């Protein structure tokens, strides 16, 4: 991953480095606790499990990171993922029953997931830029619309992938390359690309400029509307990719799929040190934030020292504690 922006400024680097270490320190501390509580925590198998399951939220969080840095927000990602999953399964089942080969069907399905996500993202972008509506409201609205439409498609139940297709598709989630599960590879690739895009391209720079001061960006001849549009499109594509990994895992979509993912993705971004008001942030931080959140629940799964009722409380305390470590001056 390329070096992060905030760490590159020489005179502030020491502080920034310490500051940027907040989530990392939190993650390390947490891992230590995990190892002490259960010796099986620190096994490669468990580590890969955690990373694999972080992949969905992590990939979405990378896209969300851009949206938040640009000063926006997207509340609809969970519903969007659910709807995409539903549509893709529906399409694949339809194609499969037409006698298309499972490989072709799955490929078409996967591509259409990304395409659909991008289209939804662009729709958000258009409503926000052309329609001049607050991102919060646009995506609150589409949150309802996406989920309702999935409910409608599934008649309130679940849409399930045909078994034959499911078997063909399964390796996308369950397969491994060089011992590393496919979703982890995809996650790493998306994060690396995201980091490059944010720090090494004009687009990334414009995203930061818009979040920092939209008026200034506009004065600097940045095509603010286009960049915002692209940013929501990018998030949509990330949601599509995440869904593409999700479908083979659970093989179905229902009205409860992806519930509250938006909160998890935004939390990963913010825990990773990006400010909600936009302007500055880092992809690496976001990735660490996402992993940190999964590690918390992994540790809770591996131990039974506290009442199951209090899981959410432990998560809450840890999130606040990590944020405290990297607080603003």
């Amino acid at each position, binding site marked *: 991953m390329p070096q992060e922006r905030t760490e590159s400024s020489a005179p502030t680097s020491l502080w920034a480095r310490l500051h940027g270490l907040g989530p990392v320190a939190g993650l390390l501390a947490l891992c230590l606790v995990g190892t002490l509580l*259960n010796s*099986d*925590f620190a*096994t490669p*198998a*468990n580590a890969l*499990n955690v990373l694999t*399951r972080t992949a*969905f939220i992590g990939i979405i969080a990378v896209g969300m990171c851009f949206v938040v840095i640009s000063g926006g927000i997207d509340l609809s990602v969970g519903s969007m993922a659910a709807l995409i999953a539903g549509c893709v399964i529906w399409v694949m089942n339809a194609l499969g029953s037409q006698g298309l080969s499972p490989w072709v069907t799955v490929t078409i399905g996967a591509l259409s997931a990304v395409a659909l996500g991008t289209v939804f993202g662009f729709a958000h972008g258009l409503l926000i830029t052309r329609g001049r509506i607050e991102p919060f409201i646009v995506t609150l609205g589409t949150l309802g619309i996406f989920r309702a439409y999935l*409910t409608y498609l*599934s*008649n*309130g*139940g*679940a*849409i*399930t992938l045909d*078994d034959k297709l*499911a078997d063909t598709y*399964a390796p996308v989630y*369950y397969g491994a390359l060089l011992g590393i599960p496919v979703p982890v590879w995809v996650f790493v690739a998306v994060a690396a690309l995201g980091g490059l895009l944010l720090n090494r391209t004009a687009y990334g720079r414009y995203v930061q400029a818009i979040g920092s001061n939209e008026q200034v960006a506009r004065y600097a001849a940045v095509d603010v509307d286009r960049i915002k549009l692209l940013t929501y499109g990018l998030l949509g594509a990330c949601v599509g990719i995440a869904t593409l990994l*999700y479908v*083979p*895992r*659970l*093989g*179905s979509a*229902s*009205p*409860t*799929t992806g*519930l*509250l993912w938006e909160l998890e993705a935004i939390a990963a971004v913010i825990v990773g040190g990006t400010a909600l008001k936009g302007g500055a942030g880092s992809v690496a931080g976001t990735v660490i934030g996402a992993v940190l959140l*999964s590690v918390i*629940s*992994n540790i809770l*799964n*591996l131990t*039974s020292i506290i009442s*199951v*009722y209090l*899981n959410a409380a432990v998560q809450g305390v840890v999130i606040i504690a990590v944020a405290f470590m990297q607080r603003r001056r």
Partner: protein
Amino acid sequence: QTPVHLGVSIPTATHSFAAGIVWWAGVAKKELETKYPALKITIKTAANASEQANQLQDLMTVSRINALVVLPSESAALTKPVEQIHGKGVYVTVVDRGLTNPSGQDAYVAGDNTAFGRIPAEFIAGKLGGKGEIVALRGIQTTLDNERMDAFNAVMKKHPGIKLLDAKYGNWNRDDAFKVMQDYLTRFKRIDAVWAADDDMSVGVIKAIEQAKRTDIKLVFGGAGAKGSIKTLMDGSDPRIQANVSYSPKFMYDAIVMTAEARLKGQKLPATTIVPSVLITKDKAKDFYFPDSPF
């Protein structure tokens, strides 16, 4: 005896019924672990399907369970993850919500969702004498809810004199049921009976009726046999509550006990055990009353 490490994976206690499940699982754990030293039970609760899939993975890789009792938060979504565990040689008992592909399970213990919809329909139809206007409240958009509603509708088809005015989602919670019922009352000047489809929702429904001071509603049928509703039924304190249908979270307890005892002896369970849903009337109510359970 072979040592058994039994994993229990259930949804979090987000509403009373789920709380009942969690409670009964805890009771089973306490009883069984004192009784059988070779048995270890780990209970995990999950807020949604993907969290539950994660937990199954953790139970497998890290806790190294060799038997599993699972109540999937969604049937379809958990089919694959459960299959995976099953494929690694873990004995799997699925509770309440069957997998879409039953080859991933060794045993299935369930309540009877068809009866859950059929029994109230028959009771209401009988009480109204085949004629009247009713409303229904549904739960959350799930396959389970669809099954119940379909069973209810199937019975009502045989009673053309009864008109189902509307069926909206009350999300198995009191607040939403209250609001939906308030609006039903505004909208329909005459309602003979309400199928609230859940005891939590029936609480909201009754409150809304009381607030509107409406007297036309003769019957409110909840469901699942929560302790509050059973108590009301036993005491006869509300004339609108005349019966209930059992769908007790106790099947969680039964499933755990059956699985644990069978596995300790190296035996199998019958492939399918249906815990029947039965009509609970006033005289039978005390058999279904568990004051210590949260449900």
